[in-house]
């Protein structure tokens, strides 16, 4: 993908979070021996040569940095540095305008499977090319000693190819047979090894026909499909891994002797006192000892409104501390925290998808026995008819070679590669091919509310009813806080003349106070800001609670908020309904909040106030009623449900384990990604069936010719290549099809 190609701009609005501390960077970096470290950062906005130059030059100038290298394909920067002091990597990148995320060192393992596949592909390609060269000379009339020499050379070249490239198929086939299953690799392995064995026998006996080219070029073709498939999934995996981590890596522990120490999450034990700065995530469950703040619980419980907490309050791991610093006492280790409980529920919920058998496996469980039986019957038939066991054997093996599922082995992966590529360009990552097969079959879609149908970010709804001058002042004050309500108000900042703010102070859990001239302005909770006006304003919109702006204690403006719906949410729901899918909302939020969203988006069914296990039970009940359920959700509380559903989709802003559990992850804001993914999957499903039909029709013509004994190596080579090309050409049709859905538009940052 070149510079600025679609898919390279990853629009992500990650919730307010502080830059990682240098302790955290150190924890996430890899020691390289001595005092050098390597830190890997994901920088999604890198997209051209200019970015490479700017980033590498700026980072290399920093003190202690040994080298910085940008990888444009994976959009990562790896920095080698030495010394105890962590270089200001994030600040430097931020100044250049790039948002960076820390990477987990364990994710950075080199992809062994890919290099094994490419190496096998190279060896198979070399062998196939050279053997084909020699075979063409034989087909053009090389005879006698020359032919035998060519056969012997071919046999020699084929050995490394079979050992290296064929090993992948032999292992997979052996594995399937050991578990009593059948997959496409079984007939491939049988066909390839029998073809080689027979050709070797022919060569030793100076026979005329050898199938070395067939066995090796078959492996080559199939490896191309397998490698492309792997590359595509790897690309999706890298893109998903590059998203920012939404769980804490560690926390500052306050020791009894007053010292502070940064400790990884895994080493936190109950009883430790932790300091949580504003903008950090709570690492483990615990109780607040001192401090006031607001917590964003949306990713944990699905509640959209922030929760005010003070001393004594219980806090859950994964929630985001918004406004003030907190001191808390851990009550559970990380492995017993809320997060770990979700992982346990998730593992227990596993079911629906592990029972799913891929189309290719289902076809091959029928195909392989039929083919092997046909070859066996052919052998018996020729034995009876001619009594020549050598001839009968040769023809039976020719049947195996001609039916070797070259086209069938390519039919499924090629379509899925093309489909995954299309979705990748639209910002949808596909974790594996079977996910598309499962998505094509769904009849029910279940959505989480907060963070999925809505953005989990409040929006000011009564801006037009507020005096513009007051709104401007409020926006000015609000710009000093990272509370979601403040951010929503700050977005309405105008250019009106307003009194200059002298001092601004945030009172965590209550609001913001600002001095301007002689006036004291307060923006925050009604009871705190409007201390003089406890009567008289009760009848106004906003009621007793709500957020107000006050001047010297009298309320001058009330603000009403609503969780902003994701762009195109309504259109996406309509398209799903139009495609015959029924849509439900399962939410952990209150009934009132759910019904508002359900009304706005015209969704008939919603279930409010569900616990994580409740969501799983709901989905399991639907599954028992023979529905194929798609789950779309983002929160920690959705994760078990994502796993329980037949297939699942998560937005890029989802919790870490949610993204890991989901089959699809969409990177852009628009919810149209969901119907698009479904439509592409259904189209792909159709093409897969066509391709399988093509492969079967090919066999219907080729098998009788083979059974009658008319197949020569030349005919086998032509037939196999032709059927493979036909299948690939059919798959490529998916690339060009125009969707009835408009592709989700890229929003904002990155490009």
């Amino acid at each position: 993908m070149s510079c600025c190609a679609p898919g390279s701009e990853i629009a992500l609005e990650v919730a307010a979070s502080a830059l990682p501390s240098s302790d955290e960077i150190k924890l996430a970096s890899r020691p390289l021996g001595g005092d050098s470290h390597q830190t890997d950062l994901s920088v999604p906005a890198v997209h051209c040569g200019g970015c490479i130059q700017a980033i590498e030059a700026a980072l290399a100038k920093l003190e202690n940095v040994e080298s910085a290298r940008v990888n444009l394909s994976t959009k990562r920067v790896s920095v080698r540095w030495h010394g105890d002091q962590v270089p200001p990597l994030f600040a430097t990148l931020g100044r250049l305008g790039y948002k960076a995320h820390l990477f987990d060192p364990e994710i950075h393992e080199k992809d062994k499977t890919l290099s094994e596949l490419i190496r096998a592909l190279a060896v198979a390609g070399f062998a196939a090319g050279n053997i084909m060269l020699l075979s063409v000379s034989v087909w053009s009339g090389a005879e006698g000693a020359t032919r035998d020499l060519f056969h012997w050379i071919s046999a020699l070249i084929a050995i490394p190819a079979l050992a290296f490239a064929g090993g992948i198929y032999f292992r997979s086939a052996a594995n399937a047979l050991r578990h009593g299953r059948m997959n496409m690799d079984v007939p491939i392995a049988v066909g390839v090894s029998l073809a080689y064995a027979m050709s070797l026998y022919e060569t030793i006996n100076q026979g005329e026909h050898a199938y070395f080219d067939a066995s090796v070029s078959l492996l080559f073709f199939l490896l191309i499909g397998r490698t492309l498939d792997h590359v595509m999934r790897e690309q999706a995996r890298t893109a998903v891994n590059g998203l920012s981590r939404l769980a804490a890596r560690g926390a500052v522990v306050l020791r009894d002797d007053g010292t502070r120490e940064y400790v990884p999450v895994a080493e936190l034990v109950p009883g430790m006192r932790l300091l949580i700065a504003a903008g950090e995530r709570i690492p483990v469950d615990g109780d607040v000892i001192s401090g006031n703040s607001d917590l964003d619980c949306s990713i944990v419980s699905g509640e959209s409104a922030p929760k005010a907490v003070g001393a004594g309050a219980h806090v859950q791991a994964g929630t985001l501390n918004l406004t003030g610093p907190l001191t808390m006492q851990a009550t559970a280790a990380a492995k017993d925290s809320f997060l770990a409980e979700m992982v346990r529920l998730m593992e227990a919920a596993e079911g629906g998808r592990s029972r799913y058998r891929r189309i290719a496996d289902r076809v091959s469980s029928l195909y392989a026995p039929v083919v092997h039986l046909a070859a066996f019957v052919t052998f018996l038939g020729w034995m009876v008819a001619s009594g020549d066991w050598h001839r009968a054997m040769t023809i039976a093996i020719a049947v195996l070679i001609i039916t070797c599922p070259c086209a069938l082995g390519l039919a499924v992966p090629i379509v899925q590669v093309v489909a995954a590529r299309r979705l990748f360009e639209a910002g949808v990552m596909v974790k594996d091919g079977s996910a598309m097969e499962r998505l094509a079959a769904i009849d029910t879609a279940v959505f989480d509310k907060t963070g999925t149908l809505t953005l989990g970010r409040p929006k000011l709804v009564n801006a037009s009813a507020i005096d513009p001058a007051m709104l401007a002042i409020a926006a000015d004050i609000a710009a000093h806080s990272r509370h979601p309500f403040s951010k929503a108000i700050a977005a309405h900042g105008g250019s009106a003349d307003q009194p200059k703010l002298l001092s601004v102070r945030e009172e965590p859990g209550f609001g913001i106070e600002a001095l301007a001239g002689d006036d004291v302005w307060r923006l925050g909770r009604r009871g705190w800001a409007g201390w003089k006006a406890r009567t008289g304003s009760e009848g106004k919109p906003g009621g007793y609670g709500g957020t107000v702006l006050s001047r010297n204690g009298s309320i001058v403006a009330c603000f009403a908020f609503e969780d902003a719906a994701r762009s195109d949410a309504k259109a996406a729901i309509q398209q799903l309904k139009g495609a015959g899918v029924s849509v439900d909302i399962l939410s952990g939020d209150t009934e009132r909040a759910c019904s508002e969203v359900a009304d706005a988006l015209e969704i008939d069914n919603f279930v409010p106030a569900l616990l994580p296990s409740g969501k799983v039970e709901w989905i399991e009940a639907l599954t028992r009623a023979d529905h194929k359920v798609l789950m779309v959700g983002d929160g920690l509380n959705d994760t078990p449900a994502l796993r329980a559903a037949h297939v699942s989709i998560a937005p890029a802003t989802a919790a870490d384990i949610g993204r890991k559990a989901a089959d699809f992850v969409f990177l852009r804001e628009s919810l149209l990604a969901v119907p698009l993914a479904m439509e592409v999957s259904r189209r792909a499903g159709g093409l897969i069936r066509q391709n399988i039909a093509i492969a079967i029709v090919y066999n219907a013509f080729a098998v009788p010719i083979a059974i009658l004994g008319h197949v020569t190596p030349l005919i086998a080579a032509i037939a196999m290549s032709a059927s493979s090309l036909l299948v690939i050409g059919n798959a490529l049709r998916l690339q060009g099809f125009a969707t009835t859905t408009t592709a989700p538009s890229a929003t904002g940052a990155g490009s």
Partner: protein
Amino acid sequence: MTTLVYLVPAALFLGALGLSGFLWALSSGQYEDLHGAAERILIDWDDKLER
């Protein structure tokens, strides 16, 4: 026939040379950032001596 005795080994040797070249390039990490490599050729580093 006599020409084949040295032509075929020569052809195979050249092919094997290409194959081993590819495998070496693969293991030395030259395929890890194809897009980056394409862009890097356009970058004009001023501080070449420092690097």
